[in-house]
């Protein structure tokens, strides 16, 4: 199949259908509305079910029920809507049920605004719900990568039996780019023997639950989850490196911001400054390897985000004080320009 010009949100929705999504539950919120609009029109044509929930809270618990029943389930929302889903996400993680959750981020806090933002980094990587759990967070930087990650997200969700986030933003969701859909796997790799189907008198009843009033048993459940998370941390980190060889400064950015940073790197090159980029493509697990491999002649690491400094915490933990780490960000829906990022770099290098 050739390339098609598509809006980011619609491309994600199309990729979900091609990836075998059977059920979608969601609630309208800007700037992700093209996703439910597209799916309400197209998913039923492929035998799937689209249902608009009465709230994000209800939507995520519908996802929980449908996932427990064996569906390949998707929901999408934007920052404040994701905050409302945190109760259900904690339950999904604890019950070890697969699903994919799209977050087309907008600016906060509170109701905030509807312009692009990356202020949900903490919400996407630290777990906003109660208890010890993690959710793999895939962060595409292009629309092509968005559709590829959608397919991968269902795979990861089912392989590890976990919710998976795709972390987009209002810019990636609303812009148009050429995209190519590759053949995707529609069926789960493993049969869902754990799913609720009715026992038909042929097996013991399945019970899906997360409560345990015996501390030792609940501790064991937690340790089982943590073992799974260590496995994901080992196998699933993804990143891109761009012109890091010989760079005197390493910039770190993810998603749409990383594209602006690439332009800044071009601008800097023209003024004789070699800057490189590390782009985490998974926010959790956060890729450690490219940070371990930063070496001479790098003198400084600068983290750029569309927020007030969130991923920079993980960058500092990964750099482990081998290099000074600084932060530059714009927030509230303001998008940094390549020029202002380049100026920050010059200022930092000049200060030394």
């Amino acid at each position, binding site marked *: 199949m050739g390339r098609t010009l598509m809006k980011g949100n619609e491309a994600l929705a199309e990729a979900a259908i091609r990836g075998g999504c059977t059920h979608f539950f969601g609630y309208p919120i800007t700037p992700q509305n093209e996703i439910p609009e597209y799916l309400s029109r197209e998913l039923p044509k492929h035998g799937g079910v689209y*249902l608009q929930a*009465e709230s994000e809270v*209800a939507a995520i618990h519908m996802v929980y029920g*449908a996932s427990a029943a064996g569906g390949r389930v998707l929901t999408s929302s934007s920052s404040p809507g994701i905050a409302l889903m945190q*109760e259900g996400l904690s*339950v999904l993680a604890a019950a070890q049920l697969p699903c994919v959750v799209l977050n087309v981020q907008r600016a906060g806090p509170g109701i905030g605004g509807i312009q692009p933002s990356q202020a949900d980094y903490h919400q996407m990587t630290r777990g906003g719900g109660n208890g010890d759990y993690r959710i793999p967070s895939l962060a595409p930087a292009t629309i092509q990568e968005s559709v590829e990650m959608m397919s991968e997200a269902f795979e990861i969700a089912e392989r590890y039996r976990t919710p998976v986030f795709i972390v987009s933003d209002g810019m990636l969701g609303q812009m148009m780019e050429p995209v190519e859909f590759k053949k995707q796997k529609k069926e789960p790799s493993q049969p869902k023997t754990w799913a609720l189907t*009715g026992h038909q008198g*042929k097996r013991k*009843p399945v019970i899906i639950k997360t409560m345990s009033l015996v501390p030792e048993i609940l501790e064991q459940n937690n340790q089982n989850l943590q073992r799974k998370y260590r496995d994901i941390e080992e196998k699933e980190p993804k990143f891109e490196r761009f012109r890091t060889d010989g760079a005197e400064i390493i910039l770190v950015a993810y998603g749409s911001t990383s594209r602006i940073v690439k332009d800044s790197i071009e601008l800097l090159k023209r003024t004789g400054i070699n800057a490189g980029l590390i782009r985490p493509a998974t926010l959790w697990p956060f890729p450690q390897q490219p940070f371990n491999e930063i070496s001479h002649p790098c003198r400084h690491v600068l983290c750029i985000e569309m927020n007030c400094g969130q991923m920079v915490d993980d960058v500092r933990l990964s750099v482990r004080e081998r290099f000074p780490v600084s932060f530059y960000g714009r927030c509230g829906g303001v998008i940094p320009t390549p020029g202002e990022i380049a100026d920050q770099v010059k200022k930092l290098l000049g200060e030394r």
Partner: protein
Amino acid sequence: MLKLFTRTAGLKDRQTHYCPGCTHGIVHRLVAEALTDLDILGNTIGCASVGCSILSYNYFNVDMIESAHGRAPAVATGVKRVHPDRIVFTYQGDGDLASIGTAEIVHAAHRSENITVIFINNAIYGMTGGQMAPTTLVGQKTTTAPKGRDASHCGSPLRIAEMFAKIPGASYIARVSVHSAKHVRQAGKTIRTAFAYQQQGYGFSMVEVLSTCPTGWGLSPVEALDWLEDNMIPYYPLGVYKAVETIS
């Protein structure tokens, strides 16, 4: 020897955790008998909810899923939309259904979600220790209404069956009680009818069951049955509030 009364196949051979005199056990039995009589045990998926009945997944002999507080109708919706040919029910208390889960239950009825809801109204939060529920009667003392519920301060008790009879999507809405043998028999028939509605595809059905909480009410099991009859039934009249079709 001829056994006249045995455990129903709808319940597992397991002792429940309910307090002495609590009527959850009776309602569990009635639901289990209905599923057995209709021969749908192997085809049923139940949604347990937060409250005393959360552990009902240990007792019903069907596939079960635990739901977060108030969310069982949303969970049931997800299950039913994957398995439209299975029988799906929620079993919810009054704190769960009539307080924290009002949005989920109203919209499940509004969509005419083809599920059956067993709603236990015992006018109190049992599991957390006897706090005021939306169904607590005016004047009834609870641990958070020590002087009795004052309607001018926190409103009057919600009448759920009456409210849901007004929702177009609801197909069968009834209120029953389990305080006497006669009422238990009637409740059993009503619960069976509610499942038959689902089986025949009529959409949302709900049975509100007036129940006792001797521990939460501070009464003996026998006193609790009398209290239910004398105080709850006058405010919560029994009967079928809506039936879109006459089916047996």
